[in-house]
């Protein structure tokens, strides 16, 4: 009779369950399945599960009536969760009846914390966010022309302003910037961009920078052809003739 059959017979448990339990125990302990089956079949000591199984399943502890002495190493874990959520099967519950149960492991704590109010974290994080936004967004944006920055205050016609909104809604800024910087990589693209109300700055330069496209485009027909899908440019779909005209007006007046 094999160890598996012997263990199953000794414990009155189906062989499949015994085998599965032994495999799980083997994975958990590093021992071989044969060793574990032999131990169970002979009533011997099976390798104990590692502390993790017990630790993960550690349930809530009784409320201490007196202050708990602080351990040298950070301790404790709260795990109202009834079972291990790990992928590894929970071996202790599948253990055959006749096998000697390992002594309860001195469960190491798995979560480490300390007593404190959540308010500290919440107020601290919110305070940092507000400070960061003030410094990185609002303060730089509040500068006005004449107060250390220059603005072109470029005048646009009403058609061009409508075209600017179409430029934004079509996502042109995904591939085109309207920002020529005072750095060597942008030399030759045109005059350095000043703070302006009517730009759509953009963050990616897949295609050309369009800050001064109006002064470089050959004519309106060339721009219309590009918007219709000429060259490698995607066609602007879903736009009426008027929308296209407004968009071209915006580009022509960007100079």
């Amino acid at each position, binding site marked *: 009779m094999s160890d598996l059959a012997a263990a199953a017979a000794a414990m009155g448990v189906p062989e499949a369950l015994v085998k599965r339990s032994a495999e799980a125990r083997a994975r958990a302990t590093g021992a071989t399945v044969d060793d574990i089956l032999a131990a169970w079949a002979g009533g011997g000591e099976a390798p104990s599960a590692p502390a993790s199984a017990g630790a993960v399943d550690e349930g809530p502890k009784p409320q201490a009536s007196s202050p708990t002495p602080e351990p040298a190493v950070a301790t404790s874990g709260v795990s109202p969760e009834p079972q291990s959520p*790990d*992928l590894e099967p929970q071996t202790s519950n599948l253990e055959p009846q006749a096998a000697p149960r390992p002594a309860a492991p001195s469960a190491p704590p798995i*979560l*480490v914390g300390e007593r*404190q109010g959540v308010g500290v974290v919440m107020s601290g994080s919110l305070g*940092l966010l507000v400070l960061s936004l003030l410094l990185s967004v609002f303060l730089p944006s509040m500068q006005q022309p004449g107060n250390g920055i220059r603005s072109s205050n470029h005048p646009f016609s009403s058609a061009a302003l409508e075209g600017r909104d179409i430029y934004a809604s*079509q996502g042109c800024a995904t591939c085109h910037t309207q920002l020529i910087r005072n*750095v060597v990589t942008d030399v030759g693209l045109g005059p350095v961009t000043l703070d302006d*109300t009517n730009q759509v700055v953009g963050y990616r330069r897949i295609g050309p920078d369009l800050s001064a496209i109006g002064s470089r485009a050959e004519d309106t027909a060339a721009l219309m052809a590009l918007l219709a899908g000429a060259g490698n440019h995607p066609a602007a779909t879903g736009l009426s003739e008027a929308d296209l005209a407004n968009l071209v007006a915006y580009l022509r007046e960007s100079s």
Partner: protein
Amino acid sequence: MAATSTAGSGTSQSELNPPGRLTGLMAAGARRDSAATRHLFTSTAFLGIGALLWLGSMAAMRFPALFPISAGRLRPMAMIALMLGWLVLGLAGGVYYLLPRLTGASLRGEGLANLALAASVGTFAVAIVLVGLGFGDGREPFAIPWWWDVPVLAVLAVPALVTLLSLRERRESIVYPSLWFMVAGVTWLPVLYVAGNLPGLRSLAIALGDLAFSAGFLHVWALGVATGLAYYVVPKASGQPLANRQLARVGFWSLLFGAVWMGPAQLVAGPTPEWLPAVAAVLGLAIPVASTANAVNLALTIGPEWRNIGRRPILAAAVAGSALAAIAGIATAIAGFRSAAVLVAFTPFWDGVIYLLMFGAVILLFASFAWLAIPTLVGRMIDSQKRATRLVRRITFAAGGTFLFLTLAGLAAGYGWTGAAYSGLVENFGEGWAQTSGLPSVLFGIALLFGTLGLLAQLGLCASIYRSLTSGRATIQEVLITDEEPVTE
């Protein structure tokens, strides 16, 4: 001061989830972990959709003539699906899963969370359609028109509301590192969204707000909350206590300090005040400090389980995800300094960093959490640990390759612009890179190949999560054998 846990003590499951105490709207449709379960599986669908749209948007940048919708519309559609649909819903599910376990109290407003989930799906789907039809406002990353920002903001505020309500009832006096990240994430999310979508601003303020939102969202909501989940997952899965609480503290506060500053660094030498890029560069150094501290802490926590890491996908995913976050953090910090920023700003370099964060770091941390939580949530194991381990390797490989070649393409483009500026070849080469046949385009093409491998792995993860519902082995509670009731043939 470390301390022994006492809260939650002596409470049974029924006490933790009193059936009669949740009433009215807050209890509608609520059962234990229902919000976490629904958020997890719903967000996985958005991950699949978003991954497809993302790759499409990147391909549309390289081959614009091949796509009926331009990259300008595809990209925000992808970002809505990924950042809102997947990351907001999925990580909110993680928050809902952990809150009862870390506070010792039941989740308050579980019914509200479930209702908000349904509203979120509708809101995000409409937003995707609106942007696809050309109604977007062009503001990165979502381009959602301002009048649709209101319902989006409403659903983004729900995780904060549920968290605050639950924390008011907490019985656990100990605060765990996971809770720090979760609390910061849920409180930052709606505030960031408001700051990044204020209407009526002029161009510079719009640009700064958009960039600040993207940076803050990616670092504090996506990476931060995912790291918080990992601080729960790794000790639970390895059975080891957290290696160093002080290191976790460093990782948390550094992340908050540096989170927003990745944005302004991209506008170096623009019409911003002179001091802004300098401050951004210095504070941006906090990002690699945070991500490295968290990665080291999690790696040290695993301890003796390192020898089994090849067979433990939960741990492998957590370690790989946190390591990739550290790499992304280092790249972010380097790109913040002026000398590097003028070279890589506006180039695919930043797409590489964002890809590594989302599809390398966060997706692995998300997978780690999902694989740990699913057996508890649905009563079934992941269908195959081997397949899960393979997925970790594939996601890491694809994310690393995509990141590498996108950053190289960015560097090549930056150097190309510089060379063009010196040589006077601006008209032919210096104004963009997609229309050239130069090195940047080749590198970008290779990155797309890696991105395709990544897409397959991402879809594989979605399939792995869904397959657990149908093919996963039942967890032990369904074949429970007790000492008192031995099973017989």
